[in-house]
């Protein structure tokens, strides 16, 4: 696909073009890289590749020159189990700084790209920075840049252009989320013994039961990110939770968490009139009826 073709083009010729862009945007007076070593990171299995990457990073930092690591492998502990991550590239600066490079195929038109896509790229890169930091603390003289280089096609062409993206905010958010995640073992402990999500070797019905066993907190944002979103949405609608209509409703409606409760409170059938939410909902319903919205 175009994305892969573009990445190959950016990294072609030993990464000269990529390093030139990086030096131009965040070189800070260092010597231009020209041709830089690109260590071989091949190894068996993700652990092997992660170890090989750590070694290559240490060697490059000690060497004190530019180095380009193409598709390094990084490990990060997520909810108690290791996850392996593969950034597009990591560049080692002569002063021991490491910079994550993210190559995307969406265009930067007049030096501006689609904000939602840039945001997604920044969140993705922040995870790489976090994983790199685990390696950097074990490496003498190394530090990880909290800005990443985003490389995109320029305007309507296939020529690369780059922009420095500050990911400190995304880093803080990801860090906090990672510490808050429930450990996988804790989640597994709550499931009935023998539950499996294996697609082969069990019927559709038993797979559905297994999925049902895991509680989910659905919000409309899930639709953009998760394949189970329609399943969770169906369940949330069955239960009549107001969050299925948007996260902000939860804050607005306070203790009234289901559609039924809110409407009953609005009609004056239930709810404590002293509760400010109930009073507000009743007032809103009265005003809406007065203004001519059809009642039923």
């Amino acid at each position, binding site marked *: 696909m175009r994305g892969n073709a573009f990445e190959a083009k950016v990294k072609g010729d030993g990464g000269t073009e990529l390093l030139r862009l990086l030096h131009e945007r965040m070189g800070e007076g260092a010597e231009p890289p020209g041709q830089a070593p690109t260590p071989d990171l091949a190894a068996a299995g993700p652990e092997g590749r992660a170890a090989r990457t750590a070694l290559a990073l240490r060697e490059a930092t000690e060497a004190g020159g530019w180095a380009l690591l193409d598709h390094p492998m990084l490990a990060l502990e997520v909810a108690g189990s290791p996850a392996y991550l593969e950034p597009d590239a990591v560049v080692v600066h002569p002063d021991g700084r490491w910079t994550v490079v993210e190559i995307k195929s969406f265009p930067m038109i007049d030096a501006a790209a689609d904000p939602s896509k840039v945001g997604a790229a920044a969140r993705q890169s922040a995870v790489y920075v976090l994983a790199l930091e685990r390696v950097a603390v074990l490496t003498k003289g190394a530090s990880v840049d909290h800005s990443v280089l985003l490389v995109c096609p320029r305007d309507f*062409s*296939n020529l690369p252009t780059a922009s420095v993206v500050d990911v400190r905010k995304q880093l803080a958010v990801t860090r906090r989320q990672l510490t808050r995640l429930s450990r996988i073992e804790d989640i597994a402990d709550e499931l009935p013994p023998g539950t499996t999500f294996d697609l082969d070797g069990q019927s559709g019905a038993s797979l559905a039961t297994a999925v049902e066993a895991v509680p989910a907190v659905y919000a409309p944002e899930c639709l953009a990110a998760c394949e189970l979103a329609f399943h969770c949405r169906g369940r949330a609608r069955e239960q009549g939770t107001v969050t299925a209509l948007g996260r902000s409703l939860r804050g607005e409606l306070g203790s009234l968490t289901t559609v039924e409760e809110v409407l009953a409170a609005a009609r004056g059938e239930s709810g404590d009139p002293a509760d400010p939410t109930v009073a507000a909902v009743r007032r809103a319903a009265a005003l809406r009826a007065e203004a001519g919205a059809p009642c039923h």
Partner: protein
Amino acid sequence: MSLIATLARLEAVESGRAQPLATVRHRHLSERPLVFVPLTTAGEAGAPLGALVGTDRNAPTLLVVPQPRDRDLRFTFLADLAEAVLPYLDAYAADIELTERSETDPETGKKTKVEVELCADAPQLIVPGRAGVDFVRLLGRSMRFRRTAEQDPDAPYPAPPRVPLLGRWFTHYAERARTPGAALLLAATDLLNRHWATGQSSLEDQHLGALLAWIDPPAGEPGAEAALRAELARGADGQLLCPPAGPATDPAFDNRLLAPAVERYDRARQALQAAEDGLAADDRLGQLTAAEREIRRLLAAQLMPTWSAVWRALDLLRELPEGDRAAARWTSDRWSFTGHRDRITAGEPPQPRRDDAVTAATKLLRRERAQAELEAGEALDDPLVMAGRRLSGEAFAGEVVEVTPAWSESKRPSPRPLLTLRTDDAPHLAEGAKVYRSLDGKPQKAEFVAYEPGGALVLRVLDKMGRAKDPAPGSVPEKGDRICWTLFEHEQRGAPKLPDPEATPWTHGGPPGAATAEQPDAPTPEDLL
């Protein structure tokens, strides 16, 4: 989302049908809008794949790029698009009325009336969704700096003659769409969402098919089920029954139907180029035409459901009566169209890639003003919108229980009657706060005096009562009148003027330098557009 809109959504969940959020239509709809449904190529951000365009719902023009990676075919598409859109725009540009506008004489500083042209109506573009508006902007950006062979004989890939002009119009329309309340370029989903609340989230409301399923479900079917079908249901061939409204296409369509068809087209084209004699060429040309026809058929099948959906949305919206102030806002759209028409006639260069500081500041000011005007206008046009403002304490409706004549304490006393009102609303009133009501379409101002022990509130009416000692008849409310007062102003005051461009301080970009003509994008072998 206000609590009233939230409540409407919850009612929609319960009843299985969308609930009204407005009693009038808050956007002007043209008698003869141009509907534009574009598709883009997957993975080639911005390369057009095809489009349906036209003003007649029964006879759309289908434009197709059989091989989106081919520059010549893309240019053909854009040229055809220009042929479909520009005559529509030109028809409106020619029909003018004369009107007066006051202009300041640069030498004397006096205001004088000048007679100017204003287009009698403006062309209106409707796209299915917000992504469509962005795509119009993208197309505009890609086309407006192109050079035609006439402008630049040395251009390596000259654009077809009318393409740069279409780029400038698309850019203008997309830019105007950022002004709140403007109606030159509208997204069908935005229009529907303004007027109805569905039983789903605002994210899901971006799906035109699902949205229509809630607003106008097939007889007897609950909206949620109809919407789910619009989102997910696939036919026996694995294709969505309600294809996405674009510009992005469904991956299943790209992989299973489109990719093989484009490949057949490529093969047929190569075969034609390799043909050695006329007879074989004729035969292969036939194959190429057949391959192209197949792609046209596929794209038409993807586009037609969206095309009908946009027209159905327009039908639904036309059932609502147009708000008075929506019609007034359309006049500023007409001014905007006339202004751009004049800039093009005057031979001004295309809009720059980036606005300079002064232009950007002016645009921002105008949009803020338009936003405030829109909010006030919608509330005044529509009791259901006003209900939301009343709930938030920005307006209140009450019955006049007493009118006390009073006068100001100046040498020539003017009427300043006091009104006592009883209201169930809870406005956020501080002492001396100004409130406004609509009197024959003009705002009348009053100030809040105090609360009476019983909870009634006292207002002092300040203007619109004539010059005489006694107020003009009908200008002061009478006992028993029910009146809605607002805490926000009905009309926006003019913003403070920005300094002349020559006097712009360096902190704000400085005086404009010599106008440098924008260069066209340098062509590269792998251009997308």
